[in-house]
C-alpha cells in the first residue's frame, strides 16, 4: 500500500472510531459515576486504614496488590531493559561534559530534590503525593547530576541493593498478614490518629518502600538508556 493511501485509509478509520467513541461516551452519565465501590470506600477508608488521602488508601490498602504489581512492572521493565541493553555504565566513559549552568544547577538542585522527594513519599498517606510521585522526584534528583556529568560512572551496586530490599519489604509486609492468619497485605500496626505523620499503620512503610524502589529503578532505567546511546558506556556489549 502506498504511504498516502494508507494515511488516508487510516484517517477514515480513525474518524469512524472517533465518532463511535463519542457516541459511546455520550451515553455515559458524566459527573454521575456509579461509584458502586467508590462510595463505600470513601465512607470507610478512614476507619479501615487511618489514611486521610483516600487515593492512597485505595492504592495501598484496598488495591494494594495492584500497587505491588505496578512496582513489579517497573522492576520487570528495568530488568528487561537491563537484559536488552546489557550491563551499562561500567566502562570508562568519556561523554561530552555539560555546560556550566547545568553543572552548577545540578549541584544546587540535588539536595532540594532529595528533600522534596522524601517529603512527598512520607506524607503520601496524608496529602496528595506518595511513593510513585516522590520516587520519581528522587530519581530525578539522582539523574540530574548524571546529566551534568555524563562521564561520571553510575554505581548500580547501591541502586541494586536499595531496589532489592525496598521491593522485598513490600512483599514481606504483605506476607506478614499471612503469618497472622489473615490475608495478604492486611493493614498492620493500627490506624493511629488521622492526620498524624505516624498514622495509617503500615501504609507509610509501604510508601517508603515504593518510593525507594521507584526512585532507584527509574534512575537506573534512565541511566541505562542514556548510556546505551553512548557506545563507550555499554560495558563491552556490542
Amino acid at each position, binding site marked *: 500500500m502506498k504511504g498516502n493511501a494508507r494515511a488516508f485509509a487510516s484517517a477514515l478509520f480513525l474518524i469512524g472510531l472517533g465518532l463511535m467513541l463519542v457516541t459511546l461516551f455520550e451515553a455515559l452519565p458524566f459527573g454521575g459515576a456509579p461509584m458502586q465501590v467508590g462510595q463505600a470506600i470513601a465512607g470507610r477508608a478512614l476507619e479501615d486504614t487511618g489514611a486521610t488521602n483516600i487515593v492512597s488508601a485505595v492504592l495501598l490498602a484496598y488495591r494494594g496488590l495492584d500497587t505491588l504489581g505496578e512496582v513489579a512492572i517497573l522492576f*520487570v521493565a528495568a530488568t528487561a531493559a537491563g*537484559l536488552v541493553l546489557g550491563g551499562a555504565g561500567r566502562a570508562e566513559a568519556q561523554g561530552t561534559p555539560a555546560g556550566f549552568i547545568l553543572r552548577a544547577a545540578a549541584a544546587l538542585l540535588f539536595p532540594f530534590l532529595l528533600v522534596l522527594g522524601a517529603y512527598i513519599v512520607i506524607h503520601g498517606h496524608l496529602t496528595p503525593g506518595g511513593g510513585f510521585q516522590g520516587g520519581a522526584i528522587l530519581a530525578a534528583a539522582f539523574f540530574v547530576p548524571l546529566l551534568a556529568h555524563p562521564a561520571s560512572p553510575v554505581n548500580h551496586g547501591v541502586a541494586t541493593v536499595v531496589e532489592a530490599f525496598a521491593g*522485598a519489604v513490600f512483599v514481606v509486609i504483605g*506476607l506478614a498478614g499471612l503469618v497472622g492468619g489473615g490475608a495478604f497485605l492486611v493493614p498492620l500496626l493500627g490506624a493511629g490518629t488521622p492526620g498524624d505523620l505516624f498514622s495509617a499503620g503500615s501504609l507509610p512503610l509501604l510508601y517508603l518502600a515504593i518510593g525507594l524502589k521507584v526512585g532507584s529503578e527509574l534512575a537506573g532505567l534512565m541511566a541505562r538508556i542514556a548510556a546505551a546511546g553512548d557506545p563507550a558506556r555499554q560495558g563491552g556489549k556490542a
Partner: protein
Amino acid sequence: MTLTAHHVVLPVALPLLVAFLLPLVGRLSDGLARLLAQLTTLAVAVIALLLWPAASDGGALVSAMGGFAAPIGIVFYADKLALMFVVALAVGLLLFRPRREHDSTKVQTLWLLLLAGGSGLVLSGDLFNIFVFYEITAVATYGLGASAHTGAGYGASLRYLLLSALGSAFALLGIALVYAAAGTLNLADLSQLAGERLTGPMGLTAFVLMVLGFGVKAELFPVNTWVPEVYTAAPTRVTAVLAGVVSKLAMVVILRLLVLLFQDPAALGFLLLLGAIGVAAGELAAFRSRDLHRTFAYSSIAQLGLMAVAFSIPGHAGVLAGIAVALHHLVVKPAFFVLADRWRGEIAGLTGAGRTSPLAAGLFVLLSLSIIGIPPLPGFWAKLMLFKAAIDAGGAGNLTAVAIILAATVIEAAYLFRVVGILYGTAPAGRPPLRFTLGELAPGLLLGAVLIAATVSVAPLGDGLTAMAADSADAAAYASRVLPGGN
C-alpha cells in the same frame, strides 16, 4: 504447614519476593540465584498442588487481599482451573528453565516475574488487577523475546511490544468503560450487574476492546501478527513457554470474561468469528511456511483459534472443549519446539534427519498425530468434545466453524506429514547428521510420555475435566463464593 485460603496469594507473592532479591543474590553467585529461582518455581507448583484438595472441596478458595471483602478489595479466586494453570505454568517454566548462560540472573528474574504475573493472571478476581498482572506477564515476555540478543530478536520484540501495548490500551479503555458503566471492578460483583449494566453497545464495545487487548497474548486474530516473528527470533525455551503456557493464561482470562460478564450471544459470536479466522489463517500460513519454527508458530495460532471457538460455545460443553484443547496444546506445542530447536532453518534441509535421530522423529510423528486429532490420542478427544459442543449448540456460525476446522485439519496433516516425509527421506551424502543429545530431547520426551499417559487414562481425565469445566462455567457459583453475603 496447613494451608488456608489466604495462601492462594503465595504463587504470586513468593516469586515476586525472590525476584526482587534475585539481582542481589546474583551478584554473589549466578548459580545460587538460578538454584533459588528454580526452587521457588518448584515451591509454587507444590503450593498450588497442596491447595488443590481444598479447592476441590469447596469449589474454590477465595482470599480478599488486605481483608477487604469482595467488591471493595481485590480478591483471588482459586478454583481448580486456575490452580491447574498455575501448576502448568510452574512446571513449564521449570522444564524450560534457563541454563548457565550470559545474563543468567536477569533471565532468571524475568522467568520468576513471568511466573508471578501468570499466576496472578489466572488467580485474580478483579478486572483491573488482571490487567496489571497481564502487563507484568507481557513486559516479562518482551524482555525474554529479545533475550537471544540478535537484531531479529530486538526487532520482533519491539514490534510485539508496540502491538501488545496498543492492545493493552484498548483493554484499559474497555475496563474503563466497564467501570464507568458499572462502578465496580470485581468480577463476581460485575457478573451480578452484567445483566443490567453491561448489555447493549456499551458492554459489547468493552468486550471487543478487552478481547483485542487480552487477545494479543492469547494469539487471537488479528492481534497475533507478532507470533511468527517472536517465536522464530526468541530462544526456543522462551518460545516453548510462550506458546505452550502463557497464551493459555490469557485465554483463561477471556474465558472468565465470557462466563461472568458477557454471556451475550453477540459477544460469543464475535469470539467465534475471530477464532474461526484464526484457525483458517494459522493453518494456511503454516502450510505455506518453509521453516519449522514458523510452522509451529502458525500452528499455535490455529490451536488458540480452536480454543476461542470452543469458549464461544455457551454452556459447560464449550468450556470443557476449550480446556481440553488448551491442555492438549500445552503438552504438544512445547515438545514441538524442543524439536524445532535443533531442526532449525529450512524444512527442506532436514532430509534424512529422522534416520539419524529416530527417537526425535518418532516423537514428531506422535505429536503430529495427536495435534491432527487421530484417535486414541488426546488431541482427538479434545477435538471431539469441541465438535460435539458446537453441533449440540447448533447455529449456522458454529456449523461453519466446524466445517472450517475439519478442512483445516487436512491442511494441518498436509504440512506436518510433509515434514515427516522429509525427515524419513534419504539424506544427501556428505552432510553432517543432525543429532540430539538426550539432554536436549529430554523435555520433549517427557511431554511425549505425558501425552501417552493421558491417552491411557483418558477416561478418568475426562471425568475430572468435565467436573472442572462445569464448575468454571457456573457464573452463579463464582458470584456466591466471592460474595458470600449476596449483594
